[in-house]
């Protein structure tokens, strides 16, 4: 049997299978694609170079003549100064490898392109001797290989194993007793296929398969690094579940996640989908350069895209040209350029129900406000005992008089130019300025205004909310500081003569400092100290105003230059703001009266239009002290509006504000050199010339049917999910250093079939699970383990430990505790508080969820990157810090301790124990039911006897140990404690069996 380990017979040397792995592993580092590292100007990955004269004048390879080939002489040399690879490289060629190279040269030194870089080929289905076995084409490929290796396939697994295997694979849950009975008893043809169809249609299918995708997406509920604070991106997780459940074609699934925002009239769901690349980490340490960690997020996006879709280790090309695969360093940054032109805002992601609820509640608020308005301002009393309006209106009249006297005549200015060190400043129709794009820890906004400013006495700065800003603004702080806050450090004003205009004083409508102890006020933006300034913590989402009084009214001035500086240990620029000036000669203080109301107050009330009058009155109603109580009721209603979840998305930049992408020398952030344009690696199918080079077209390029990699890479990962091992073992590396496929024709057939089936994942899952290959028994015979220990050739069915989430789900499922609720914010199942308080910086208090949320499926567990949920990481769950194509399957004593003693698992055993204790039948029948709930199959006699004996013994012991019985039985009730404790012990033992957490 050939498993790629022994030396091939004469005439059999295959470049791809036998030679390239040797050359790549031992030679390419210095004689490969990387021109910078290349020695002696020799590359052995390209035949024309390998057979040409080297710098030394020698011929490295003379096809057909190993004895004349310098390469052969050097690999056989004992002279350390000549020997290749050089001894200090620690790359030792075995005698067999040397022999292969010699033989390959003797046979003509034929090169072949790397298999995975050539498009899949449709092969005829191979002939097999045992024609009765295959159920679909998959089996033809598998059986043909088994027959050629003289391996005996395994018989079909029994119905118990089949339904358990299928349920775990397709929906990640155990079958119920009724489902088991129905399937085992269903003797009609097509019973298995009906089961498959039922499971594929289950809404839990989406949960099961979303989780695998989330590994690649590095989904988590916190930002990572030191602070590791929570983020809200679970709407993206729910999008994946929905997309999988609806069997969204994989090409569309790809395009929406990479570029949903760029699709014509993108839907809310398509925006949410772009969360895929917002799962990168955010470092919130005060000392960081946000642009540096943005660069790290970008490299993560490139590497993750390459791993997920192309199965390429592109990350190697960040610092230098890839040593083994034909990826130039420049191409790395060209791929980055496709992905690097988006801004990264949050957006609201309401459900349809929330939208409706919010709409209704808002209508109710408006109607109550109208009623309040009507009642207050009706001219005639409705009832005879009410005070006449003339008397009642006194407070309003008084307020009106006062505010009219106080009102300032402001002129809103539209800037001629609005520039900054980095952010984009866009002038909106209402003359306000909206900031977007990247930020630094010292952003400087420079506005110029033209006009006649003579006599100007004060300047007003309105800080305004906007939906594009974190928590609606008005600031842009998005990490470390309070989200949506800003920090205005200093304000400078100059006239056209370039002379500094002195500002004498400043006031503001609201000020509060989020971090630190220096206070906050607009006046602090005048003190010449960049460390102090104005911010509006806890006033996020609201407008705020500051007024700056000039020392003297301006003399003649045609031009004003206003500079705003935002310096903090986090980016804290203003998000939206507007500037106005006045010639009012009084000392002006900032007013809470809205700008439009204040404008109306400048004219006699009677001269106002009806609409203006109403606006003034409406505002009054909103502040009138005599209406406090009525307003409270409305505010309460307002507060009951459902909180709309927010999620992180990508938003392509406007055409006039592209973000340049640079080549980075040695991959270092601090060494950008020239800018690069978007392009794809030259060795892959070319980018269409008639399409714009942007993220959307890049996504389409990835799923173009010409792509030799994507369909293979994706289907190979699905295959591995079912069989425990991919057709290509290295799920994340289809490059020259990766494993060769065990069944290359099958892989190609599956890849082509995937495309043919319209990229339908469910169709491919159906195909795989209905194969005879999949339905085999997983029993391991000594012969099989001898011949094929890793089951590469699939002479038996899959058997391996479940993934972390499935371990939790299966145990909860068996006990009946599992919640079937789908989606929503992540939850906090029980775990010791010390996991998040002792291990990580933020000391997150793990407040255990109550009710149903205590028992949700594993994928809904709150994922904290620096301290993942202990049970899940114990079973090799990911941390969300990097893209994971293949989880490890470890087997450790700590897992045993978890299943034996962890509170969650104890509770499941208690639940089963309580259930068993209330069953009326004889213990043997109760045990059988209990056993089947956990392991699907009935126990055999030895198992039954052992468990019953254990039960009886514990029952006797617990009868004498009432306190222990009460403690173990849980729930605090006294009745039946010994019985419940005994059954809890039995359940605990069953839940700890290897088979319980194994798919077999």
């Amino acid at each position, binding site marked *: 049997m050939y498993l790629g380990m022994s030396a091939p017979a004469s005439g059999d040397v295959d470049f791809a299978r036998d030679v390239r792995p040797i050359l790549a592993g031992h030679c390419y580092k210095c004689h490969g694609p990387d021109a910078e590292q290349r020695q002696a100007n020799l590359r052995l990955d390209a035949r024309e170079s390998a057979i040409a004269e080297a710098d030394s004048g020698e011929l490295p390879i003379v096809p057909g003549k190993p004895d004349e080939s310098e390469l052969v002489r050097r690999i056989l040399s004992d002279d350390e100064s000549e020997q290749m690879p050089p001894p200090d490289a*620690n790359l030792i060629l075995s005698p067999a490898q040397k022999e292969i190279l010699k033989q390959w040269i003797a046979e003509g030194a034929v090169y072949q392109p790397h298999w995975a870089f050539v498009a899949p080929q449709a092969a005829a289905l191979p002939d097999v001797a045992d024609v009765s076995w295959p159920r679909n084409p998959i089996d033809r490929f598998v059986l043909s290989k088994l027959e050629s290796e003289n391996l005996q396939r395994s018989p079909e697994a029994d119905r118990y194993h089949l339904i358990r295997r299928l349920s775990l694979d397709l929906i990640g849950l155990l079958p119920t007793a009724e489902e088991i009975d129905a399937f085992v008893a269903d003797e009609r043809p097509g019973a298995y296929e009906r089961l498959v169809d039922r499971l594929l249609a289950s809404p839990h299918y989406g949960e099961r398969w979303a989780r695998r995708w989330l590994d690649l997406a590095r989904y988590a509920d916190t930002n990572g*690094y*030191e602070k590791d604070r929570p983020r809200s991106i679970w709407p993206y997780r729910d999008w994946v579940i929905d997309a999988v459940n609806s069997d969204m074609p994989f090409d569309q699934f790809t395009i929406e996640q990479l570029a949903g925002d760029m699709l014509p009239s993108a839907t809310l769901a398509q925006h949410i989908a772009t969360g895929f690349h917002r799962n990168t980490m955010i470092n919130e*340490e005060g*000392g*960081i*350069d946000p642009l540096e960690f943005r660069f790290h997020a970008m490299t993560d996006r490139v590497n993750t895209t390459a791993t997920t879709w192309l199965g390429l280790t592109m990350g190697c090309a960040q610092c230098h040209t890839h040593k083994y*695969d034909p990826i130039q360093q420049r191409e790395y940054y060209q791929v980055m350029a496709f992905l690097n032109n988006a801004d990264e805002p949050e957006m609201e992601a309401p459900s349809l129900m929330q939208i409706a609820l919010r709409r209704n509640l808002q209508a109710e608020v408006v109607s109550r406000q109208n009623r309040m308005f009507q009642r207050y301002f009706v001219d005639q009393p409705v009832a005879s005992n009410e005070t006449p309006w003339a008397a009642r209106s006194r407070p309003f009249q008084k307020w009106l008089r006062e505010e009219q006297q106080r009102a300032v005549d402001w002129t809103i200015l539209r800037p001629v130019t609005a520039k900054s060190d980095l952010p984009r400043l866009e002038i909106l129709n209402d003359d306000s300025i909206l900031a977007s794009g990247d930020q630094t820890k010292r952003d400087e906004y420079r506005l110029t205004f033209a006009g006649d400013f003579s006599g100007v006495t004060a300047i007003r700065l309105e800080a305004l909310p906007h939906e594009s800003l974190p928590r609606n603004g008005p600031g842009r702080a998005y990490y470390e500081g309070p989200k949506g806050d800003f920090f205005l450090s200093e304000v400078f004003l100059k006239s056209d003569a370039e002379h500094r205009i002195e500002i004498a004083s400043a006031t503001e409508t609201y000020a509060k400092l989020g*971090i*630190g*102890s*220096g206070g906050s006020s607009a006046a602090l933006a005048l003190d010449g100290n960049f*460390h102090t*300034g104005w911010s509006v913590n806890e006033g996020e989402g609201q407008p705020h105003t500051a007024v700056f009084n000039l020392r003297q009214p301006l003399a003649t001035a045609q031009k004003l230059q206003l500079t705003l500086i935002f310096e903090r*240990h986090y980016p804290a620029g203003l998000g939206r703001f507007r500037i106005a000036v006045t010639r009012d000669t009084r000392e002006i203080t900032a007013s809470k009266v809205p700008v439009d109301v204040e404008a109306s107050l400048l004219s006699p009330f009677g001269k106002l239009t009806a609409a203006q009058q109403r606006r003034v009155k409406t505002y009054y109603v909103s502040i009138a002290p005599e209406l406090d109580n009525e307003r409270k009721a409305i505010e309460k209603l307002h507060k009951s509006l459902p909180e709309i979840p927010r999620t992180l998305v990508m938003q392509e930049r406007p055409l006039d504000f592209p973000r340049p992408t640079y080549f980075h020398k040695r991959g270092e952030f601090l060494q950008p050199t020239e800018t690069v344009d978007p392009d794809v690696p030259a060795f892959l199918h070319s980018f269409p010339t008639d399409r714009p080079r942007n993220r959307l077209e890049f996504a389409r390029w990835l799923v173009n049917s010409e792509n030799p990699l994507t369909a293979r890479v994706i289907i190979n990962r699905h295959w591995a999910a079912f069989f425990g091992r991919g057709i290509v073992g*290295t799920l994340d*590396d289809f*490059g*020259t*250093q*990766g494993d060769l496929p065990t069944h290359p024709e099958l892989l190609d057939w599956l890849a082509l079939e995937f495309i043919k089936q319209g990229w339908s994942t469910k169709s491919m899952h159906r195909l795989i699970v209905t194969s005879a290959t999949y339905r085999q028994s997983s029993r*391991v015979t000594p012969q099989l*383990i*001898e011949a094929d*220990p*890793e089951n590469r050739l699939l002479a038996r069915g899959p*058997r391996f430990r479940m993934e972390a989430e499935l371990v939790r789900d299966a145990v909860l499922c068996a006990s009946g505790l599992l919640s079937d609720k789908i989606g929503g914010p992540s939850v906090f199942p029980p775990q*010791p508080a*010390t*996991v998040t308080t*002792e*291990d*990580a*910086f933020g000391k997150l208090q793990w407040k255990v969820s109550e009710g149903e949320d205590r028992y949700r499926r594993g994928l809904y567990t709150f994922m904290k990157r620096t301290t993942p949920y202990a049970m899940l990481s114990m079973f090799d769950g990911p*941390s969300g*810090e990097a893209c994971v194509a293949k989880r490890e399957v*470890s*087997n450790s*004593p*700590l*897992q*045993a*301790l*978890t299943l*034996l*003693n*962890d509170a969650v698992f104890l509770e499941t055993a208690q639940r089963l124990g309580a259930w068993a204790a209330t069953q009326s039948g004889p213990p043997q029948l109760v045990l059988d039911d209990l056993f089947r709930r956990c392991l699907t199959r009935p126990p055999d006699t030895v198992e039954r006897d*052992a468990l019953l*004996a*254990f039960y009886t013994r*514990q029952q006797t*012991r617990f009868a004498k*140990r009432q306190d*222990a019985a*009460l403690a*173990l*039985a849980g729930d605090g009730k006294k009745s039946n404690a010994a019985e419940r404790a005994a059954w809890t012990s039995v359940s605990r*033992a069953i839940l700890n*069996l*290897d088979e319980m957490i194994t798919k077999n």
Partner: protein
Amino acid sequence: MTDVANNNCDVTRRHFFGDCGVGVGKIALASLLTGATPRSSDARQQPSGDLTPCDPHFTPQAKAVIHLFMAGAPSQLDLFDYKPKLAEYEGKSIPPEVIGGQRYAFIRPDAAALGPQYQFAKHGQSGIELSEILPHLGHVVDDICLIKSVHTDQFNHAPAQIFWNSGFPRPGRPSLGSWLAYGLGAETTDLPAFVVLSTGSGISGGAANWSSGFLPTVYSGVRFRNQGDPILNVTSPEGVDSQLQRETLDLIGDLNRRRLNVEGDPEIATRIASYEMAFRLQSSAPELMDLTSETTATLEMYGADPEKPSFARACLLARRMIERGVRCVTIYHSGWDAHTNVAGNLKNNCGKTDQASAALVSDLKQRGMLDETLVIWGGEFGRTPMVESNPALGRKLGRDHHPQAFSMWMAGGGMKGGYSYGATDELGFHITEKPVHIHDLQATILHTLGLDHERLTFTHQGRQYRLTDVHGHVVHDLLA
């Protein structure tokens, strides 16, 4: 019951001994039970990991490591690297040509200098200069190797801590302890090979600091906690006495063995072994944590209260772990991040750590364990010669992060004692002599344990990875 066990005993033994072909790697833990022969060093890379002892590349000096990780970064200028010149500069900016293009976390480069906050004096025969705030360390100064010329690439806590541990500034690569467990295996099957403890505030880099990265998970650091179970879930649930736990494990073992007989999958044998080891952990962990066998003199030397979690208790536990065969113990003491009041910060943290750190060295020495145990003391970077002061953040008389020159000390494990290495300029800003990069330290640490940092590799995504990436030189001058 016993029948089930006996009937299947042979099958299990056969699997343990690896008759089944796949055995050796896959049932690594199982083979531990049988006292199997060491792995050969070229067979390190196994898909599921393997903790059987493995020969080092060459004869090691050290067998185990205790790393006292001073997280948050202590001020070398007030503890180890005395710069009287700084006092002269106090209130003045450091010349811009000294500062160059260095980026800082919080301060502006023109911030004024801040003089040493404590007096220094020479100690021991070696005459090494130490701050008055480290009186206990002064007593063991002739056993330590002080390196004043360490530098790192990172100037923020999480990246710098992860970089120190894994040679890479972001999560995803194996930590030092994981590489040691991978490279050398475990000396005990009753305790984990790599243990992590912590005192003080939370750890910036989080679990990435002791992650096995792309190495198999069995090499991950195992947390010993201050509150509740030292190892999560090591205590049986209430109502489960040791007899029930033993009977339960026997039952599980018997039924698993029966399944092994039927299914033939060697993974079941590994599971059986895991449960046996779990049971042993249930007694070895409490035994380890029980300090009643320690003398009053020992407890006093460390300043440890047996009942109260503290850095001192953690140091004592570390010694007990090493005695019991643990390969690597890391104790995180967080809290050194003195952006304000560096003097007060040092007083507080030295008060918590100085005595126990020195006691650990003395205790190991008097027990004859110091030669084979490498003790490492230090933070993820240093602190600036310049003052940090920012009224808006309520900060004064602090020091910011300083990656380009800081101090650490090591003791035992083949390091020179009473030895001071490297130097910085008169303001403590730059290294002037014998720079030691974090990758050099890592190479040197591996070297003391008999591992060649260039040969200790693991193939992942088509590339051979190592702790020192493509850098690092063993600093032979430090070795005795």
